[in-house]
């Protein structure tokens, strides 16, 4: 019966060619817009997230009562006063090597970087600036902050008494590679360091206040004696952070585990409303497609009353005749959405070319989201099937004698 219905459905569609073509084009347009839009939005969002957390820790492990002070390079509103409070005595991770080793063995973690952090002041000659001191192990921290690539002057080295300073800070203090500077902490300790280079992390506040130094001198400056103040983590899939954080909490119950999401609520809610509006647009495109197919098929039932009557008279069952129209909806949906997928793919390629040719004017590119593509094609086809239900029912209701009687 399916075979028969398919055959009739196909012929019906073929016989009203322009009608069929128009609706297929309509579906194609709708589906390609859906695919392009969803890829554009996800590309845009991926880019925003990359900008936000690409070179910042995704998860931070800190002692229970430590106020989060970490600044992400792109948070434009840094409250410097929050950084000024000294690291409290109890706010430290003691057996950090053990935890660090544990973390390095966790799956899904890209890097775990120990951090000694606190405020301090830097003096060179007559000039003094208050700064954020970041004691790190370069081989780990580099994987988060990409310091090697972002060193604008000098060499990215911090062994011994070497430090890396932000470009703005270097300007303020007229620092050059090889210059000596004095670092003092609120605890009253100080030390002389040598500027190995300057870095640009793409954020003015950070460039004006951050100083990277090696973990051990940092520990000495803050009197931490082998302890650290936090472990910063980057993971492979940024959106797995909450899940991974939960797992970490189970392993390390005595620490607070903070994710990038908690520090970027505004961005996330903006992304969410963007996703929602994109979803709304897609939904209404889908509704338009469904209504379009439904109207075409309803008209087709009236056009084919005669044929339906004949087919029923010579023995087509109600199920069979319903199937004829359901299959028509299905064919329209499949063809339209497949063409739409192709065309959407083409639009994406076009955008990629434009982004490439723009030389950075379009700061991001988009890639085809295969899962979205499959979803859209499947949902559109299902919607087409749905659209065919009412026409199918109409065809089912038709009695052959009405047709035969009225010629």
């Amino acid at each position, binding site marked *: *019966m399916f*075979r028969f219905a398919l055959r009739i459905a196909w012929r019906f569609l073929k*016989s009203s060619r322009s009608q069929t073509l128009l609706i297929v084009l309509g579906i194609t347009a709708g589906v390609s817009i859906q695919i392009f839009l969803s890829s554009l939005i996800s590309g845009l969002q991926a880019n925003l997230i990359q900008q936000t957390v690409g070179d910042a820790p995704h998860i931070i492990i800190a002692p229970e009562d430590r106020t989060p002070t970490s600044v992400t390079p792109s948070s434009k509103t840094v409250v410097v006063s929050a950084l000024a409070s000294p690291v409290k005595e109890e706010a430290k991770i003691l057996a950090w090597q053990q935890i660090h080793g544990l973390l390095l063995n966790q799956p899904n973690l890209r890097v775990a970087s120990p951090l000694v952090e606190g405020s301090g002041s830097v003096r060179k000659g007559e000039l003094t600036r208050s700064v954020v001191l970041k004691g790190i192990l370069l081989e780990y921290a580099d994987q988060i902050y990409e310091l090697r690539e972002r060193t604008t002057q000098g060499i990215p080295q911090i062994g011994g008494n070497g430090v890396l300073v932000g470009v703005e800070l270097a300007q303020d203090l007229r620092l050059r590679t090889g210059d000596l500077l004095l670092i003092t902490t609120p605890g009253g300790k100080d030390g002389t360091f040598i500027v190995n280079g300057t870095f640009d992390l793409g954020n003015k506040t950070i460039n004006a206040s951050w100083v990277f130094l090696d973990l051990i001198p940092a520990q000495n400056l803050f009197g931490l004696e082998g302890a650290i103040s936090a472990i910063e983590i980057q993971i492979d899939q940024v959106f797995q952070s909450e899940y991974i954080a939960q797992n970490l909490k189970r392993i390390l119950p005595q620490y607070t585990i903070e994710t990038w999401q908690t520090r970027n609520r505004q961005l996330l809610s903006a992304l969410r409303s963007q996703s929602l509006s994109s979803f709304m647009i897609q939904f209404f495109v889908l509704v338009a497609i469904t209504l379009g197919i439904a109207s075409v098929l309803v008209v087709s039932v009236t056009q084919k009353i005669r044929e339906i009557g*004949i*087919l*029923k*008279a010579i023995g*087509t069952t109600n199920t069979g005749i319903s199937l004829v129209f359901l299959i028509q909806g299905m064919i329209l949906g499949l063809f339209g959405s497949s063409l739409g997928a192709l065309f959407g793919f083409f639009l994406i390629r076009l955008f990629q070319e434009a982004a490439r040719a723009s030389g950075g004017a379009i700061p991001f590119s988009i890639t085809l989201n295969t899962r979205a593509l499959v979803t859209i094609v499947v949902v559109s086809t299902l919607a087409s099937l749905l659209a065919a239900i009412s026409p199918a029912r109409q065809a089912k209701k038709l009695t052959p004698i009405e047709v035969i009687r009225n010629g």
Partner: protein
Amino acid sequence: MDDNGLVVTQNVNKIYGTAVRYQVLFNITLTVPRGQFLALIGPSGSGKTTLLNIIGALDRPTSGAVFIQGQNLNDLSEEDLARFRNKFLGFIFQFHYLLPEFNALENVLIPYWIASGRPKGEIVDRAMYLLERVGLKEAAKKRINLLSGGQQQRVAIARALMNFPQLILADEPTGALDTKTGEQVLELLAEIRHESNMTMIMVTHNRDVALQADRVIELIDGKLCKEVYPRVIGIKEATEILESHACNLEDINTPRTPLQEE
């Protein structure tokens, strides 16, 4: 089973309308034995088409029953009736009612498709044979719209024969054709009937056509009025009976179950 006739109608009544009830058929009780060629005649509006549609399972009687090969059609669901029409019946309508989306050969194959899907080679051969039989071998691949009325009706005949039907129902098969084409179509039907000894009920307005049948029944105002067997009593006498104004079937028309006539 066939002792009772291939087609048996028992006290078939048909009433149209619910608010204004309009009775079209009154207690039609009729037996058509296998192999018979029955012509149904009667004035316009007398209920011939209605009766034929009820026998053909396209319509249901308001009361009474139709048995075909002993099967009470009242016992069948809509879907069963559709399958029944496909399997047992061949319809030839006044208007040719082919599907314009398909060519002649495909139209002949449709009854097979409905039942069984992809036709095997031998099935296509049969369809071709039928087209050849109705003289349209060359037109097999032609679009329906390119065929003349007579050719279309002949395709419809081939289609009606496709599934080896037990019973052919024809409602004024020549009504839409000119006299000459009509005669050719009737000749064709006669030939096919002779070849296969098929049972056929044909509604016609043409008395000469009717007189070629084994049996002629005239309906008047929804009631059986006259019945003649031209081959038994001869054309001349049959004509006389049909031309007279008196019914010869009063006995059949008197209600057997008084309850059914209000």
